[in-house]
């Protein structure tokens, strides 16, 4: 899953079968540091509770559809959670690798 920021809503009255009642949101994909990366996308909101401004995580490809109530639907990006907190303090990165790494 990747980070995303909800930046808008999309309303479509006529939709493909199975997408009825699914909320569509505009999301800006983010990198690991929660900075924008790539173009905005439209995601189906599998939590049904996300809204503009929120930091979320999303799943893409075929797994997106599996997050929705009807599994066999045309969706390739779904919001699967709303993020309360990311604890990625710098010292985590500075820790020495736990694996030995050798090249010969």
């Amino acid at each position, binding site marked *: *899953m*990747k*980070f995303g920021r909800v930046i808008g809503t999309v309303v479509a009255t006529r939709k493909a079968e199975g997408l009825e009642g699914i909320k569509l949101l505009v999301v800006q994909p983010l*990198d*690991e540091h929660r900075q924008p990366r790539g173009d905005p996308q439209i995601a189906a909101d*599998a*939590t049904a*509770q*996300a809204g503009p401004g929120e930091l979320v*995580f999303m*799943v*893409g*490809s*075929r*797994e*997106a*559809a*599996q*997050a929705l109530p009807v*599994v066999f639907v045309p969706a390739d990006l*779904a919001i*699967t*959670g*709303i*993020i*309360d*907190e*990311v*604890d*990625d*303090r710098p010292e*985590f*990165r500075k*820790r*020495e*690798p*736990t*694996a*030995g*790494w*050798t*090249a*010969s």
Partner: protein
Amino acid sequence: MYIGKVVGNVVSTIKISHLEGRKLLLVNQLDLQGNETDDYDIAVDVVQAGPGDTVLVIDEGNGARQILKLDPGAIRAVIVGVVDQVALSG
């Protein structure tokens, strides 16, 4: 699969049912020299990994569903191992 480094914890209260009770970790993908890259995943942990650990990550839906015993399952990235040793030759 790829080798990554756990660089954070992700906390979420409102999430889909497939993720209930599962620990989510932020994993940076490492290159073959063990350096951090721009790629990352928010991954489900099934091996009690923690920040700083070098881990093995699968990013594929069918494998994830099998490990987590979910069907359907809207999860792709799962930490499936803690790496002890990487040895490259040639």
